[in-house]
Structures are given as structure tokens and as C-alpha cells.
């Protein structure tokens, strides 16, 4: 899905005072591209994702997906949160089936549920409840729940942020494989420089709140990428410098 963000601004009311979180952000994402939004914690990147998902409306500017304005949530644009937020009363299978059930097409399209579970490597855990799963497995279920809807835009809000470092590494590799196989457009919010460079073709760097785009890095390296790739190391140094963290 081609995504076009023009002069988007967003402000929240905090004790009666408007608190700007997004300031005149313009962004263009080509279909099939993997873009990472990198910036300090709490800078407003997640707000941009909520706007793209259609969960909130911007206070200024326009957002379009494939030319159509984004003004409400739609299953073609799905959001994966930092917390898996699985429904604890549903089994893995029922959690993944949520989107199809909500749209009333579970009977017709039910076979996609098993496909999505297989895709994220959770075959055999269909009847488990969320409290029986580890953090990494829960996040995989959340991914499957998003992918089962056949989205064209995958919005990832620090989906690996709460995982232990080993699980994180393997999930990063899996995300790349999933994206390559499906050909969907992906926008990832993260504050982990390395993660952005390993996953994305383009890294957009944001300023502290209110978020403004300060720079853009093109990561023109083949997948799968390696952390010790000298070009990635150089880009990492550059990104840290842009974030004001150079040593």
C-alpha cells in the first residue's frame, strides 16, 4: 500500500493545555517498502502509527493509503502493539481468528487461521491460552492475528520492545522473512538503532517531542543483514550522531 502523509500534526490536551506531539510531518512510503521510524522514547512516533491505523484523527494535515483518505480503522491496515494484548479468554486459535470473526467472514475464510498460525511457527499451540505462552510466542500470535486479515500495510509499534534479547534477534529475522514473503508494506516504530538498520530499507529519524523528521538514512544492503557489516556499523554511528548520542 502506498502511504502518503502530508503536513500531519497532532496535539493532545493535557490539563487544558494543548501538547503538540507531531509537528508538520510529511512522509511517503512506496508499496512493498520497509520503513523504520526511529526516535527517542515518547517522541510521538507511535502517535503517527495510530493516525495511520485510523484509530485517531490528526489535528492538521492529511493521510492517505493508496490515494484514499485514512479516517477510520480498516483491516487492510493493521497495527501490532508493543504488548501482544491477546484476549486472555481466547485460545491462540480464537485470538488469531478475531479479525475474520469481527468482519463476519470466519465461516468462509476459516482456513486462513491455521495458515497464519503455521506461518508464525506456532503449529501445535492452537488450543493454548495466552497465559500459557512465553513473551515471544505471544507476540507471534499477535503477528498472526494481524496477518490473517491479509493486510496491505503492517504497522509495527515496537513489537519486539519487551522481548528478551535472544528472542528479539530471532524475531527480527522472522519479521524480515515474513515481509519478504508477503510483499506487504511495513512501517516499524522503534527506538533501537540496530533493529531499524537490520530490518528497514529506509530509516526516518525523528526529533524529541514534538516529533519532526530530522533526517533520513537509506539502508541499501541485501537481506539477511549482519550486525557486523561495516556499512551498517557506519550507518549506526551516523544515526546515533543524528540522535545526539555520538561518542
Amino acid at each position, binding site marked *: 500500500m502506498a502511504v502518503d502523509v502530508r503536513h500531519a500534526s497532532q496535539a493532545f490536551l493535557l490539563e487544558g493545555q494543548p501538547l503538540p506531539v507531531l509537528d508538520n510531518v510529511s512522509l511517503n512510503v512506496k508499496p512493498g517498502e520497509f520503513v523504520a521510524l526511529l526516535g527517542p522514547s515518547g517522541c510521538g512516533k507511535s502517535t503517527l502509527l495510530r493516525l495511520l491505523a485510523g484509530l485517531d484523527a490528526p489535528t492538521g494535515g492529511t493521510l492517505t493509503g493508496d490515494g484514499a483518505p485514512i479516517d477510520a480503522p480498516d483491516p487492510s491496515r493493521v497495527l501490532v502493539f508493543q504488548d501482544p494484548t491477546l484476549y*486472555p479468554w481466547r485460545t491462540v486459535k480464537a485470538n488469531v481468528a478475531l479479525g475474520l470473526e*469481527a468482519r463476519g467472514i470466519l465461516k468462509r475464510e476459516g482456513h486462513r487461521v491455521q495458515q497464519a498460525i503455521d506461518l508464525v511457527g506456532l503449529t501445535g499451540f492452537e488450543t493454548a491460552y*495466552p497465559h500459557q505462552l512465553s513473551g*515471544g510466542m505471544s507476540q507471534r500470535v499477535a503477528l498472526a492475528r494481524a496477518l490473517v486479515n491479509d493486510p496491505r500495510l503492517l504497522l509495527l509499534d515496537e513489537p519486539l520492545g519487551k522481548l528478551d534479547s535472544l528472542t528479539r534477534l530471532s524475531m527480527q529475522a522472522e519479521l524480515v522473512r515474513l515481509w519478504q514473503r508477503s510483499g506487504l508494506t511495513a512501517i516499524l516504530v522503534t527506538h533501537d538503532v540496530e533493529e531499524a538498520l537490520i530490518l528497514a530499507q529506509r530509516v526516518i529519524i525523528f526529533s524529541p517531542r514534538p516529533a519532526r523528521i530530522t533526517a533520513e538514512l537509506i539502508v541499501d544492503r541485501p537481506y539477511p543483514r549482519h550486525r557486523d557489516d561495516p556499512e551498517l556499523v557506519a550507518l549506526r554511528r551516523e544515526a546515533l550522531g543524528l540522535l545526539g548520542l555520538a561518542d
Partner: protein
Amino acid sequence: MSGAVIAGGLGDAASTRPGPWFGGVVAGLAWLAAAAITSLAPDEIEVGRTQELAAFALLLGASLVVAGLAAPLLGQLGQRLRTLGPWLTVLGLALIGWELLTAKLAILPLPFFASPQGLLEVYLEDWPRLGESVLRSLWLLLTGYAIGAAAGFVAGVALGWSKAIGYWVHPVLRLVGPLPATAWLPIAFFAFPSSGSASTFLVALATWFPVTVLTWSGVAGVNRAYYDIARTLGASQTFLVLKVAIPAALPQVFVGLFMGLGASFSVLVVAEMLGVKAGLGWYLQWAQGWAAYGNMYAALLVMALMCSTLVTLLFKGRDRVLAWQKGTVRW
């Protein structure tokens, strides 16, 4: 942690204990002793049914001794009996103490303290009236509770979901809810055509308040992210209420149902004492009026068993519906 952790049964330690069940033999001996004392020692006061009580204790004691010796042959049942040993022993000893204090030595004053055989006499002779009272009470309780719980659930969901409904219902709830349902007694018996319907109303009212408040707080406290997830996946408002808000609030709803059940018990007794001509509350009142304290204790015991059974059933239902929860309060 990786992989699903599905808890099996308890450890194996408890399930592989061969040999006789000595706890059962001890309990059996306690009951045999109770039988001997009941049957052989002379009654100090005039009571009936002494020999029936002795026969009952003898039968139970003998069965326990046999079960204790034959435990390895009883399989599953034998295993489940083992944990009961200490309780059965203490109950047997308690019967001896009770028997000595009342019938045999007459230390406790009559008529306020009934003897064990006195209680047995009530059950054997007055069971038609007592049984009818139980059935009437159960019917009143179940209809009132069902109405109150259903109304409370609907009200709670509406309050938690709709701001407009909350605006109108919340003040009423705050004013009327904390009032003890029994305070409505005079109005209820005046406003309703029959004392039965008035009592049903009172039981329903007592149940309604806690169910409403807890359902409401359950629905209002649902993790906002659950709604975001469902909305991005294309859920309608109906779906959000029925498939997200209500299931997420169910643990709270059950707390409300539990508290409502407790409240309904107390209202039941009061309503029956004042307005109805049958039921356990009425039976208690009637027994007290005739100074038939044996009947009173007998009715109290039946009532305790009834209430406890109802709570157990509620918790069984909860365990079934909320099997996905872990680490909740046990009953």
C-alpha cells in the same frame, strides 16, 4: 519459559500410597465409641430416638473401619476418603462431647441446647414440613436471584458502555443501591399484590446492586488496547460489547454474582420471617415461637448446607466459564 505449561494433576506422592487407611480406622473407632456411649449410658433428660442415633453412629463407625482396612481395594474412592480421616475423627469425638453435655449429663440448660438425638428426631419426624420449607426457600431464592442477577448484568454493561445511560442511572444507583434491601420491606409488602412477589422483589433487589456495580466496574475497566485491537481488525460496536467488553469483564461479574448471592441469603431469611407463610426463614421463626430449639438448629443446619451448596455451584460454574484464568480465589 518456552512451550505451553499445562498443569497436570497433583504430584504423584499422594497417589501412590498402598496399604490400609489407618486414619479411617481411627475415625471408625471414634464413631463406634460414640455409638456405645449413646446407646449404653442412661439419658439424664427425656429424649427420643437415642437408639436410632446410636445405630447411625454404629453403622458409620463400622463402615469407616471396614473402609479403612479395605482402602487399597477401593481404588479412586479410597484415595479421596483418605484426606477426610482427621475431620471424621474430630466429628465423632465432637458427637461424644455434645452427647455428654446434653442428653447424658444435662450440663447445658434445656430447652436452649438440643441433644443430637433431638436433632435426629426433628429430621425423622418433621421432614415433610422442613422439606417443603427448603423447596419454597429455594424457589424464592432462585427466582429472585435470577431476576436480580440478569437485571444487574444488563444495567452494569449499559452503565459501563453508554455515557448517556450512565448519566441517568448512576445517581439512582448511588442513592438506592447502598440502602439495605430489607429497608424496602414495608413498601414492598404494600406495593406488591402478594407476599411471595414482594419477597422475590426484595431478593432480586439485594442481588441487583452488587452485580450491577461489579459488572459496571468490570466493563469500565477493560483494557483500552483490547478495543483498539478489535477496531483495527474491523469490529462493529456490537462486536466490541459482546465479544470484547463482556468477556473481559466476566471475572468481575462473578465477584458481583458471589456478593449478590450472599446478600440474597440474608434478605431471604428476613423476608420469609416477616411476610411469607413457608420457607426456612418462616420455619426458624415458627420454631422459635414454640421454643422448639431442636427444630431451629435442624433448620439452621439445613440452611447452612443449602447456602454452601449454592455458593459451591456458583464457583463450579465460574471455574467452567473462566477456565482461562489462573490463580483465582478458591471456594
